[in-house]
């Protein structure tokens, strides 16, 4: 809504526009008389001419006041001052000067309970001996089982002559312990030629020489730990040439 300036004491120019009669320092009338604004004086707004002491208030000026200054110490409570405060805090956290205090969610496990983990199960079958020929009453050279970090290892054995014996190495003996496999295969009087029915034994890592910790059932055998770089061998005493195939089944649970 337009307003009307009070006629006196403002003089008017030839276009009937009021202007400030007071000259500036250059003795000129450089400030148009139309630039007035309402200035709060006391509890009243009074029309006030724009001047160096009373600049025309604009939105930009208000925003500038709120944003603050780009300098090392901006005016307190301005936007830039608060951003700088955040930057300073992050710098101190990164530098370790004032580490961030954090709280983890979750719950504590009892000492007796294992830490749950994702299981990546895997089964790999390798052929160790492929139809190897064994002379009568002789043993094959000790062969590495290639064990690494498997959970379990089984041997599948096909042999066309009998009797025969399976040996493994232990922590105390090199490839001379029959109790390294479960079930024990010692002078076994059975040949295994059926494609679907090999002799299956579980490698037991090493067991006590006295047999005190030897398993009596498969669940106990499975519970025994594995070890790396173990070997085995096989001897046949049939009096004839024998053929043997051995595959290993490696299981990671």
């Amino acid at each position: 809504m337009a307003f009307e300036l009070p006629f006196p004491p403002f003089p008017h120019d030839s276009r009937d526009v009021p202007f400030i009669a007071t000259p500036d320092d250059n003795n000129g009338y450089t400030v148009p008389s139309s630039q007035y604004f309402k200035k709060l004086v006391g509890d009243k707004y009074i029309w006030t001419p724009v001047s160096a002491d009373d600049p025309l208030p604009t939105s930009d000026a208000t925003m500038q006041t709120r944003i603050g200054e780009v300098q090392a110490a901006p005016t307190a409570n301005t936007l830039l001052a608060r951003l700088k405060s955040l930057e300073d805090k992050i710098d101190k956290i990164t530098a370790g000067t004032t580490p961030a205090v954090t709280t983890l969610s979750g719950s504590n496990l009892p000492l007796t309970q294992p830490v749950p983990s994702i299981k990546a199960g895997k089964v790999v079958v390798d052929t160790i001996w492929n139809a190897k020929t064994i002379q009568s009453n002789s043993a094959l050279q000790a062969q590495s089982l290639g064990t690494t970090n498997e959970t379990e290892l089984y041997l599948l054995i096909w042999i066309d002559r009998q009797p025969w014996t399976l040996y493994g190495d232990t922590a105390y003996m090199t490839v001379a312990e029959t109790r390294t496999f479960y079930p024990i295969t010692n002078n076994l009087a059975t040949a295994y030629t059926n494609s679907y029915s090999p002799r299956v034994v579980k490698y037991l890592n090493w067991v006590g020489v006295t047999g005190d910790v030897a398993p009596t059932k498969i669940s106990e055998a499975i519970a025994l730990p594995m070890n790396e770089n173990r070997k085995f061998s096989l001897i046949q005493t049939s009096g004839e040439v024998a053929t043997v195939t051995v595959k290993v089944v490696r299981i990671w649970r």
Partner: protein
Amino acid sequence: MTEERKQQIIGVLKGIYTSFEPTEEEPKLTIFGLVSRYNATGQNTELIGGDWVVENCPEPLCSLG
């Protein structure tokens, strides 16, 4: 091993392969079955095994599995 002896062994193995008759326990001939039968002939003086068959024999002997 001479080439002549090698061919002689391969000839015997081919004969075993040709005469193989599947059974319920042995539905197809494996390298184990092949070498086992060859050993049973008493001719395996070189003590060849499955690895030798894979390296020296033609198809289908070398890929019997």
